[in-house]
C-alpha cells in the first residue's frame, strides 16, 4: 500500500463507516499488542518471583494498565470496529446516522489511548489495579500514583465521550435506518447483540464518566471530610456484622458501589458483541439457522437487565448489609440462566448440521467451550460463602480471563477471519489460521486453567516465596502465556500477507445470508446500488444496482453527492486531548501551554464542524418502527439526554449516599440560603420559557422574535451563572469557610452544582452559535429542528436544577 500524502489525508478525514471500522480494528489490535507485552512481562515475573525481573512499582503499573487497556481499548473497540464496518451493511444502510460523529468517536478513542500510554512517561502509569479503588487513588503521598493517574483519568474521560457518541450513533442507526421491511425479528445475531450492547453502553458509560470525574476532583475533598469525621469518632466496640450503618464508611464504599455499578454491565458490554459474532458465524458454517434465535435475543435482553442488579458480588466481604449480599448472590447465580439459554442454543445449532471446519467456526466453537468453563466458575464466585475464600485470588483471574479472552477475544478473532475476505477482497491463509487457532486454544488453557488451582494465591502480587508451593503452576501458566502470546503473531502475519497475496475473494465466499454478502468485496463506498427490500415472506430483493457497480445517481432526491471527508472530527478530538492533558499533566494543574491551545483548537474544530456543509443522504425509505416520523437528529438528542439522565442520577445518588451516611449536616437555610437557590430557580424557569418562545418564533418565521428569545435565554442563563459564582465565592471566603468546616457538604455541593453549571455554560455556547445563524435566517422551515434540539437540551438542564434545588437547599 502506498503511503502518499493523499492516502494519509484520506485516512485522517474519512467519515465512511467502513474506513472508521478499519481504523478501530487496526488500532485495537495495536493496543492488544501493547497489553499483551505487559501481560507477558508479568507472567515472566511470576515465573521468577525471587529475586524477580521487574521492580514491584513497575509490576503494579503493568497490572493496572494491562487491565485498563485490554478492557477499554482492545475488547470493546475491536467489537466496535467490526460493528462500524458491518452493522450498516447488515441493516441495508449506506452509513451510520452521523458519520462525522462516528469519526470523532474514533479519534477520541485514539487520543485517549495515547494519553494512557503517555502515563508511563509522566510520573508513572496508574498503579492501583484497574478498579482504581479509593482511598488508594485519593492519597497524595509518594506511595501513590502521581501525574500518571491524573492523565489516565483524562484519557478515560475521552474514551467515555467516544463511547457515548458511538452508542448514540448506533442506536439511532438501528432504529431509523433499517432497510424497508427489515424488522428487529429479522436481525441476525450481531446487530442484535450490538443493539443491546450500545443501549447498556449509553446507560453505563455515563457512570464511568462520573467515576473518572469524581476521581479527578471529588475524592481529595472527600478524603478531607473523612479524616475530620473520623477524628471525632471512637472506635465502635459493638459488633457490626449485622449492619452496614456503621458510621464513617462514606467515601470508600461509594467509589466501590459506583465503580461496580458500571463495572458489571461493562463486562457484559465486552461480552455481548462476541456472542453476536458467534451467532453470525455458526449459521454460516453449520449451514443451519441459529437454534432458538428468538430465545437467544430475549435472553440477551434479560441478561442485560439483570446485569444492573448483580454488582454487589464484587463487594461480598466489604461489610455491606447481609440482606444486600443475599439478594446479590441470588441475582448473580440467577443471571446464569439467560446465559444457559444462549449457550444451549449455540450448541443445539450444531445438531444435524453440516459443519465446515474453517478458522472462523473453530474460533466460534472454541469460544463457546471456553465460555462454558468460565461461566460455570463464575457461579462459584457468585456464592457469598465461597467468595470468602476465593475473593482476591487467582481463581477470579482465571474465571474472568476465560470469559474475556476465551469467549471474548476468540470470538472476535473468529469474526476477523470471517469478515476479512469482505473487508479486503482477499482470502487469508486457511492453514496458518488453523494453526493460530490450535496454538491459541492450547496456549490459553495451559495459561489459565492452572490458575483455578491457585485459589490461595492473592491477586496483584509481584512476588511470592518459593515455600508457598505456587511456583510450578505459575511456571506452567507462563509457558502457556508465551505460547498464546506468540501465536498471535501468526494472526498478524497471516492477515498482513494475505492483504497483498491472498487469493481474491468473491462477494460471498462463505455462502452467508446476511446483507453484506450481497455486495462486492470490499463493498463500494455507498454500499448498495439500491437499498435491499425485505418482503413479508422473508425474501430479500437486492435490486438491480449490482454488487460490483454503483448506480450513477443516488435516489436521495437532492442529486447531491454525499460527503465523506471532514477534517473537523480529528481536530475536535485533538483539541479535547490537549485540553484534558492540560488539566491533568501538571501538578498543580493546569498546564496552560496545553490547555490554551486545547481550547483554541477545540473551539476552532467545533465551529468548523458546525459550519461545514456536510451532506448525509436522508431521502431513501427505511424501516423505522417505533420512531416513524422522528428525524434522526432528534432521536440522537433524546438518546444522548437519556444517558445524561443516568449521569446526573448517579451524581445525585452519590450525594444521597454521602448524606445518609454522614453523622451531621448543616441545618436548612444555615449554609445554603434558600433565597439564592429560589432566585436561580426562577431565573432558569424563565429561561425555559424564552427557549419555548424561541421555538414558537422559529415556527412562525419571526426572525426578530427568534433572536430576541435567544438573547433573552442567553441573558437569563448568564445571570444564573453569575449568581452561582457569587454564591460560590461567598461560601468559600466567608469567615466560616465552607471547606474548612463542612467538607462533605462543600464537596457534594460544588461538584454537583459545578457539573450542572458546566452544562448551563455549554448551553450558552450553543446559543452563541445559534444567534448569528438566526440573524441570517437559518432556522425557518426545516431549520427549526435545530432550535427544537437546543430546547430539548436546555429544558433538560433546567429540569436537573429543579431536582438540585430542593435536594441542596430545602432539606
Amino acid at each position, binding site marked *: 500500500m502506498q503511503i502518499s500524502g493523499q492516502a494519509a489525508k484520506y485516512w485522517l478525514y474519512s467519515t465512511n463507516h467502513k474506513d472508521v471500522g478499519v481504523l478501530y480494528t487496526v488500532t485495537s489490535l495495536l493496543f492488544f499488542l501493547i497489553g499483551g507485552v505487559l501481560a507477558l512481562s508479568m507472567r515472566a515475573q511470576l515465573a521468577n518471583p525471587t529475586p524477580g525481573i521487574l521492580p514491584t512499582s513497575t509490576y503494579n503499573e503493568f497490572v493496572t494498565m494491562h487491565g485498563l487497556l485490554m478492557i477499554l481499548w482492545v475488547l470493546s473497540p475491536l467489537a466496535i470496529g467490526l460493528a462500524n464496518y458491518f452493522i450498516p451493511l447488515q441493516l441495508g444502510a449506506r452509513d451510520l446516522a452521523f458519520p462525522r460523529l462516528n469519526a470523532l468517536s474514533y479519534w477520541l478513542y485514539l487520543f485517549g489511548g495515547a494519553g494512557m500510554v503517555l502515563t508511563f512517561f509522566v510520573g508513572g502509569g496508574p498503579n492501583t489495579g484497574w478498579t482504581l479503588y479509593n482511598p*488508594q487513588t485519593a492519597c497524595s503521598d509518594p506511595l501513590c500514583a502521581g501525574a500518571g493517574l491524573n492523565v489516565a483519568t483524562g484519557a478515560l474521560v475521552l474514551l467515555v465521550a467516544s463511547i457515548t457518541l458511538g452508542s448514540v450513533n448506533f442506536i439511532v442507526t438501528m432504529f431509523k435506518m433499517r432497510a424497508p421491511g427489515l424488522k428487529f425479528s429479522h436481525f441476525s445475531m450481531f446487530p442484535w447483540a450490538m443493539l443491546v450492547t450500545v443501549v447498556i453502553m449509553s446507560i453505563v458509560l455515563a457512570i464511568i464518566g462520573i467515576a473518572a470525574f469524581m476521581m479527578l476532583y471529588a475524592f481529595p475533598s472527600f478524603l478531607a471530610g473523612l479524616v475530620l469525621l473520623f477524628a471525632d469518632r471512637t472506635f465502635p466496640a459493638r459488633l457490626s456484622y449485622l449492619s452496614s450503618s456503621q458510621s464513617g464508611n462514606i467515601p470508600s464504599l461509594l467509589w466501590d458501589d459506583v465503580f461496580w455499578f458500571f463495572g458489571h454491565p461493562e463486562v457484559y458490554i465486552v461480552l455481548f458483541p462476541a456472542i453476536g459474532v458467534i451467532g453470525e458465524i455458526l449459521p454460516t458454517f453449520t*449451514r*443451519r439457522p441459529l437454534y432458538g434465535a428468538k*430465545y437467544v435475543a430475549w435472553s440477551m435482553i434479560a441478561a442485560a437487565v439483570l446485569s444492573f442488579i448483580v454488582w454487589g458480588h464484587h463487594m461480598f466481604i466489604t461489610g455491606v448489609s447481609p440482606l444486600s449480599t443475599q439478594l446479590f448472590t441470588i441475582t448473580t447465580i440467577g443471571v446464569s440462566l439467560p446465559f444457559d439459554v444462549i449457550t444451549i442454543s449455540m450448541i443445539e445449532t*450444531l445438531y444435524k448440521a*453440516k*459443519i465446515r471446519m474453517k478458522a472462523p467456526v473453530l474460533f466460534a466453537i472454541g469460544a463457546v*467451550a471456553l465460555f462454558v468453563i468460565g461461566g460455570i466458575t463464575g457461579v462459584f464466585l457468585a456464592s457469598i460463602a465461597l467468595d470468602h475464600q476465593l475473593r482476591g485470588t487467582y481463581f477470579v483471574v482465571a474465571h474472568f480471563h476465560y470469559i474475556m479472552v476465551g469467549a471474548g477475544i476468540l470470538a472476535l478473532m473468529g469474526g476477523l477471519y470471517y469478515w476479512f475476505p469482505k473487508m479486503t477482497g482477499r482470502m487469508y491463509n486457511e492453514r496458518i489460521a488453523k494453526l493460530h487457532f490450535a496454538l491459541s486454544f492450547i496456549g490459553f488453557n495451559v495459561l489459565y486453567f492452572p490458575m483455578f488451582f491457585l485459589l490461595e494465591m492473592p491477586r496483584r502480587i509481584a512476588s511470592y516465596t518459593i515455600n508457598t508451593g505456587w511456583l510450578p503452576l505459575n511456571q506452567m501458566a507462563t509457558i502457556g502465556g508465551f505460547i498464546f502470546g506468540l501465536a498471535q503473531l501468526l494472526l498478524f502475519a497471516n492477515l498482513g500477507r494475505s492483504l497483498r497475496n491472498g487469493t481474491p475473494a468473491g462477494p460471498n465466499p462463505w455462502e452467508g445470508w446476511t446483507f453484506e454478502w*450481497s455486495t462486492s468485496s470490499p463493498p463500494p463506498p455507498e454500499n448498495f446500488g439500491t437499498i435491499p427490500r425485505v418482503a413479508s415472506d422473508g425474501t430479500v430483493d437486492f435490486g438491480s444496482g449490482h454488487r460490483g457497480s454503483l448506480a450513477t445517481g443516488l435516489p436521495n432526491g437532492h442529486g447531491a453527492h454525499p460527503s465523506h471527508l471532514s477534517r473537523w472530527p480529528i481536530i475536535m478530538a485533538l483539541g479535547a486531548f490537549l485540553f484534558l492533558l492540560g488539566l491533568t499533566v501538571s501538578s498543580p494543574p493546569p498546564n496552560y501551554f496545553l490547555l490554551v491551545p486545547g481550547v483554541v483548537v477545540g473551539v476552532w474544530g467545533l465551529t468548523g464542524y458546525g459550519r461545514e456543509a456536510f451532506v448525509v443522504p436522508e431521502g431513501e425509505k427505511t424501516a423505522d418502527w417505533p420512531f416513524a416520523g422522528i428525524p434522526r437528529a432528534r432521536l440522537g438528542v433524546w438518546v444522548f439526554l437519556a444517558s445524561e439522565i443516568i449521569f446526573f442520577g448517579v451524581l445525585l445518588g452519590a450525594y444521597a449516599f454521602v448524606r445518609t451516611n454522614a453523622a451531621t449536616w448543616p441545618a436548612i437555610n444555615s449554609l445554603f440560603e434558600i433565597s439564592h437557590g429560589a432566585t436561580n430557580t426562577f431565573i432558569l424557569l424563565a429561561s425555559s420559557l424564552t427557549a419555548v418562545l424561541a421555538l414558537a418564533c422559529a415556527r412562525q418565521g419571526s426572525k426578530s422574535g427568534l433572536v430576541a428569545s435567544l438573547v433573552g435565554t442567553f441573558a437569563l442563563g448568564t445571570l444564573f451563572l453569575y449568581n452561582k459564582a457569587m454564591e460560590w465565592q461567598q461560601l468559600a471566603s466567608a469567615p466560616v469557610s465552607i471547606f474548612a468546616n463542612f467538607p462533605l457538604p462543600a464537596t457534594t455541593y460544588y461538584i454537583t452544582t459545578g457539573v450542572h453549571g458546566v452544562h448551563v455554560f455549554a448551553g450558552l455556547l450553543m446559543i452563541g452559535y445559534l444567534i448569528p445563524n438566526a440573524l441570517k435566517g437559518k432556522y425557518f422551515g426545516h431549520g427549526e429542528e435545530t432550535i427544537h434540539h437546543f430546547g430539548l437540551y436546555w429544558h433538560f438542564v433546567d429540569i436537573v436544577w429543579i431536582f438540585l434545588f430542593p435536594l441542596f437547599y430545602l432539606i
Partner: protein
Amino acid sequence: MTASNTADLFYQLFNTFTFLAVIVGGIVLGLMAYLIVRFRGRDGFPEPADAPTLGHIPPARGHLKTVAISVTLSAIVLGVLIFGTLNATEVITTVPSECRPLQSSPYGSAHCAYIQVTAFRFGWNFTYLNTILEGQTLTGNLTIPFGTNVILQIRSMDTGGRQGVFHAFGVDDFKIKKDAIPGLTNTLWFRATDLDPHTIRCFEFCGIGHSGMTGKVNVVQPGSLGCSSTGC
C-alpha cells in the same frame, strides 16, 4: 483434617459446587464434542434444507420446550447451590450466640476471645481485647486458642498522617477472609481445629508492599492464653 470449622464448611460447599460443575461441564462439553464430530461436513453430504441463502431471512428454528426444559433443569441445580450458599453464609457471617455481647459481658456469655486486627501499610497489628494478652498490641503474629471461638474485628488504619486504604485479611487454611475498610469494622469468627501455624495474607491490592503483607497465626492450647475449653 482441616484447620478450622470454617474450612470444613467451605470444603463441603466447594466440593458440592465442584461435583456439579464437573458433571454439568462434562455433559455440555461432551455433547459439544460429539456434535462436532458427528455433524462435521463431509463431501457428498447434502446441504441441509434450511441452509442460509442470500436473499432469504432464515426460518425460525428451535422449540420452546427444549429451552424450557434446560432452563428448569438449570434452575434446579442453581437452586441447590443458592440454598447451600445461604446456609453456609449464615454460619460464617453470624457470630455464635454465646459470643455475642451482652449488657453484662461485652464478649458474650462464654467470654469468647476477641482480637482487633488493624491492617496498615504494610502489615497487621493485633490488639487483644481479652485473654492474658489483654491490652497488648502485637505486630505480625496472631496467637489464638485452640478449639474455642475466636472473634476478629478487622479494621484499616494507617499511621503517620497517611490515609488508610483497603486491605483484606485472609487466612488460607481457615478459608476465611474479610475486607479491611477505613472507617468500618468488619467481623470474622472461626474455631481452630489444629495446632499448626498458618499464614495471613492481604487479598486486596493496597500498594507497593502488598506482596509482602503477611503474618502468622499461632494456635496454642487455651491454657497458655488464660482460656479454658469454653472461653476466655
